[in-house]
């Protein structure tokens, strides 16, 4: 075989080896052991025009709801171990249980259970990007509606 041919074959072999090593690296992505779950309980109402400055990062998302006033009632963050769950007390005698389900470092699934006085209001499983959030709203509270922002980050 000619010299350039040998070199090309050597490069090809090296490339295949590199691809194999990369694929192994990708496959070895470890499932995260802990999750940072963060919730924000927000009172959305049409009384007044207040927009809580602490909700600036959620302003665009909350504006979709078309309420005139938004006030942060509670913000809490909990670290949850794999297969564990986090329980948050939500204003109005409600409680929110967040249980991380199967997950990778990029995307995770959360089981969210909201209850009030022992009665379940909603039970849902949501898949979202690590660090992403979604809004759960509707329960009436103090003449407005309660909106809960739920986010989780795999660690």
């Amino acid at each position: 075989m000619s010299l350039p041919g040998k070199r090309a074959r050597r490069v090809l072999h090296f490339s295949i080896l590199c691809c194999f090593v990369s694929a192994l690296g990708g496959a070895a992505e470890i499932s995260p052991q802990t999750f940072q779950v963060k919730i924000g309980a927000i009172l959305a109402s049409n009384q007044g025009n207040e927009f809580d400055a602490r909700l600036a990062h959620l302003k665009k998302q909350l504006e979709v709801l078309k309420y005139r006033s938004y006030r942060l009632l509670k913000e809490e963050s909990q670290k949850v171990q794999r297969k564990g769950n986090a329980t948050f007390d939500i204003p109005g005698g409600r409680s929110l249980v967040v249980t991380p389900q199967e997950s990778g470092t990029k995307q995770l699934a959360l089981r969210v259970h909201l209850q009030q006085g022992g009665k379940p209001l909603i039970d849902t499983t949501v898949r979202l990007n690590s660090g992403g959030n979604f809004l759960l709203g509707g329960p009436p509270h103090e003449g407005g509606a309660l909106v809960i922002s739920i986010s989780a980050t795999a660690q």
Partner: protein
Amino acid sequence: MMNRCDNVRDRMGAWLDGELSRSDFEEVRVHLESCPACREEQRQLEKLQASLKELLVAAPSNVSFEQFWPGVEQRIKRQRSWYENLLGWARDLAAPPQLAWAVPAVIVLLLMGVFSLESFWPGMRLAGQRNNFASIDSIDAFGRNIALLRENETKTTIIWLYQNQEGEDESTGEKSEASPSF
């Protein structure tokens, strides 16, 4: 059916070139000793081979190298122009053979770097790749009405839980304002 002479003549070329096995070679040789017609065939073939060899050996000697060598000598002696030197230098720099392995290695390292960024800082994404949309795997509102909204501009997913039809929450008796018009 092939007779013995045809069989031997078919293998004559290989026999002359010494390409037959020992037993085949002997078989052909014994036949040639006893068969004048095949011997004549052998002589003709040997003559043809000799003529061809002479022709091939004579051909290169007829080629005139008188004009060829001065051309080679001139090219060896000729100084390369600065442009050619620069071009050669750039070519060597861009693709040194000993660094051929570096191209795939750099690609792999870059890919690994991109993946590693997310391992070190979960949630970190390259610009433009972030997609905050959440997808709902399952949902149970225990008989209540719900609305699902996915808003494109902010990539927001909203689950809205409506209270019961009387407009009154069954647990607290609280009345809420009109539902949002999304």
